[in-house]
């Protein structure tokens, strides 16, 4: 076939192979296999994505991830927005933990324009606070959500309620419930309201209680154990091969945490140790996330104790309407609840970015890894595997 955009047919004979195939060749006409689609209209999938599954009986023999249902073309849209305008747009790239996007786009622009040194101390602490709160609300959905995939709905009921309390705190701090739009290039958009710390502490106490309850409910649950242990094992060798990051990698015994490896903000001033496990199965991943839940609560307490009371919230920056950033490129990463979350940012000296490219953990987890991992799995476990990899489709297609 002549490529429309190349205008010629590439000479494939000079290449080592014809187009390599991924996955098994399945002959559906043999009547031995059946093809089923999971999603996009399916309550169990994580977000609006689809899995195309070839099954033999109950066993998946081949899987394909289909994304694009949530594609909005952020990277294109941000290319035609001013630097400050890009930040409300970028937030929508991941609804589960939007603050991470805010932080990335703010930090990229600050680094390239040389204002990263001028971000006030108070603003950095507030950024940390909002990032950890975002992680907490993500985990409050994610940890019981894993139980939800095995039809354990009670934990979800608890978790979503507690997440809502954190969203209430977010609302007080940032003015937004889900999309906070709080971390702006140069700083943040507000100090802590009066009495915020006390109210957050109250919520954290409730979450402490929840952590114990969910442990009894899920991790000491015969059904959960039976189904999750040994399911979807990721070996340490697979981690680099597939680009696995975050809690998923840590559950396989590979200790990767951007907060420790490449400390940003004031994470080097906090006392914490990323939890790990060695089994690498769904149970281990959930267990690591549960431990991380404890750790996040602890981190929030540490941040509240260490942060100053008052201070400037934004650096003195040029007029946002004409803000130009000299030509340059950078990659900024942070540790989101799902793992390494990064942004490649290229500027060309104009008032708009040349290219913004997001690297979400789901990009590798949700396509290459998930497709390989589903082979041999039971159809009933597909959701559990998807949730355990924390796939978030908007991160893949953006």
């Amino acid at each position, binding site marked *: 076939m002549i490529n429309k955009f190349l205008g010629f047919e590439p000479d494939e004979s000079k290449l080592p192979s014809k187009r390599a195939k991924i996955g098994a060749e399945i002959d559906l006409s043999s009547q031995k296999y059946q093809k089923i689609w999971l999603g996009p209209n399916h309550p169990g999938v994580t977000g609006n994505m689809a899995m195309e599954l070839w099954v033999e009986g109950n066993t998946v023999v081949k899987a394909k991830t289909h994304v694009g249902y949530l594609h909005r073309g952020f990277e294109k849209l941000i290319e035609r927005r001013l630097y400050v305008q890009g930040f409300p747009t970028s937030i929508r790239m991941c609804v589960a933990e939007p603050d991470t996007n805010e932080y990335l786009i703010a930090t990229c622009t600050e680094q390239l324009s040389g204002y990263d040194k001028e971000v006030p101390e108070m603003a950095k602490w507030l950024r940390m606070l909002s990032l950890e709160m975002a992680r907490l609300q993500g985990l409050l959905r994610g940890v019981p959500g894993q139980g939800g995939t095995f039809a354990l709905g009670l934990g979800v009921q608890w978790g979503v309620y507690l997440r809502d309390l954190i969203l209430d705190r977010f609302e007080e701090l940032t003015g937004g419930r889900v999309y906070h739009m709080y971390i702006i290039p140069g700083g943040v958009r507000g100090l802590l309201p009066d009495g915020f710390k006390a109210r957050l502490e109250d919520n954290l106490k409730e979450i402490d209680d929840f952590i114990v309850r969910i442990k*009894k*409910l899920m991790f000491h649950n015969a059904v959960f154990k039976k189904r999750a242990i040994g399911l979807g094992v990721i070996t340490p060798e697979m981690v680099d091969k597939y680009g696995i990051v975050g809690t998923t990698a840590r559950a396989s015994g590979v200790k990767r945490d951007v907060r420790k490896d490449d400390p940003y903000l004031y994470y080097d001033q906090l006392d914490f140790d990323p939890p790990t496990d060695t089994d690498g199965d769904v149970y281990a991943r959930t267990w690591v996330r549960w431990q991380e839940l404890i750790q996040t609560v602890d981190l929030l307490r540490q941040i509240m104790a260490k942060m100053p009371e008052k201070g400037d919230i934004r650096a003195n920056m040029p007029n946002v*309407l004409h803000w130009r950033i000299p030509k340059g490129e950078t990659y900024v990463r942070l540790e989101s609840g799902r793992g390494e979350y990064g942004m490649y940012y290229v500027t060309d000296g104009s008032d708009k970015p040349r290219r913004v490219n997001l690297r979400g953990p789901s990009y590798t987890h949700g396509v290459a890894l998930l497709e390989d991992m589903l082979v041999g799995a039971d159809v009933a476990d597909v959701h559990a595997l998807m949730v355990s990899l924390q796939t978030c489709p908007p991160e893949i297609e953006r």
Partner: protein
Amino acid sequence: MNLKDILTPFTAWSRVVKDPVTIKDPLSREGAPRYRGFHDNDVETCIGCGTCEAICENEAIDLVPVEGIETKDGDSGLRPKIDYGRCCWCALCVDICTTNSLRLTNEFKWVDTDPDNFRFIPGVDEKDWYKKEEGWRKPEPNYHFYPQERVKMEELGPEERGDSFIEFVKGYSKEQAQQEADRCVECGICIGTCPAHMGIPEYIKAVRNDDMEEGLKILYETNPLPEICGRICTHKCETVCSVGVNGDPLSIRWLKRYIADQVPAEQYHEILDTKKIYKDDKKVAIIGAGPAGLSAAYYLSLLGHNVTIFEKLDKPGGMMRYGIPEYRLPYDQIDKDVNYILSLGVELKTNTTVDEEMFKKLQKDYDAVFVSTGLHLGRSTRIPGSDHEHVFQSIDLLRKITAGEEIMVPEKIVVIGGGNVAMDITRSLARLQRAKYGKVQIITTSLESEEEMPADREEVVEAREEGATIDPGWGPKEIEIVDGKIKGLHVVKVLSVFDEDHRFNPKFDENQKKFFEGDMIVESIGQAPDLSYIPKEIDEQLERGPRGRYLISEYNQTSVEWLFAGGDIVVGPDVIHGIADGHKAAVGIDNYLNSKK
């Protein structure tokens, strides 16, 4: 797997006795005090600058006219209209709002069946959430989307500048100019207020982009005297600047000067593309080489007409040269602008006084005549003693200082007047006093109080820095003369200068008196035109408006069709008005000449 794993999950039943967490009435739940809900706008404070529209990444905001809100200087009369089919409630519009009039309330419920309803003008269209006090406002502290403070202009200190006539405002460096230009929000409110309607946001943009050629082109589109205007313009634009509503206004004048200063005079022809100008056979006479005359000459010669300027004094520039002291406007800068205009083929006849006879000759020899002779007669206070020989008119003194003539500089001087001219003469005399006696003893008094004084604020401050005493709010009563020598000025307290109708009608408190000692009194309370050169028969044909000024069309045509008038004699003393008049008159003359064919 053991029995424990089967039993432990049942501990969740303990929750059965807990209170439910359900919100009883979710519909009446309020948003947080900082919640970004629906918009509200204080239409009274809003000036319709459109910065909210500029920053909106979703193109959700339109600026639309609103009934009952008049367009006036500093208020476009437009108000933002928001499309909730676009808004993402990021509140960038609130954060950048130059007047802090826009805010978001914490209301968030709006359900409708018609998608076309989701557009409204906050603060104008009736919505029930305006009464909510809580909601998102611009964050505190030190949170600004554009720098609030003006880049400081380097000036000579009062000590250095006080005894010389060299220019004391140094002008911006490139970094400073770009930094200052960066503060502009490009709203364009200033354009309507500037009498010449200069493309202010555009030339500021040129400064930002460091494109001086483009900047100069934009300047010359509406103003052929940028060096002069960049120094002494009354900058009405800065008084309406939207950035100045909360913060310092943009220093538009200094940025204009920056552009003109950057381009050497030799490059003007090339940049402005005026190396070759086509000339037709039409001839226009201009009387008076002041700002209006020069401006008219520039645009007329660009339009291809032959222009001759008649000037009474020996150098062109009019009041700009003879009225404004050199420390504010150096003569070489006047020459730079004027020489460029003259180089376009404009003929200048200096030392040529136009009288009645000459005027009639001009009428015969030229196709059109533009009079812009300015206000060169000083007004007198006419108080007892004001006819003494040591009572001077500031205009006369300034002219003499420029011409280098010797003038009387006694040890103690009293100046009457609160305008810029009063400040000019005060500061000029202060310099001369310092040079002569090493100290300054000059008192300037005016009818208007400190706040009402028409002089620019910085002029007053600088005059004080240079040692002059400014004591406003006093009405001159009598000049005390003993043995034929002036001893000083008796004044009484002024209660108010203007009545309720804003008419000049001063009221005095005769009980509060003061005496200003001085050997010489300078009157600087206004100027009047000298139009004696216009022949009687023509003068009779000319219609006059209020205050005896000639009535002119929008293109400065008088009721005598070949006669155009402009500048101070028509609009009152102001350089930029004069320039604007010259431009308009040029267009008018061109139209007139073309219609005559």
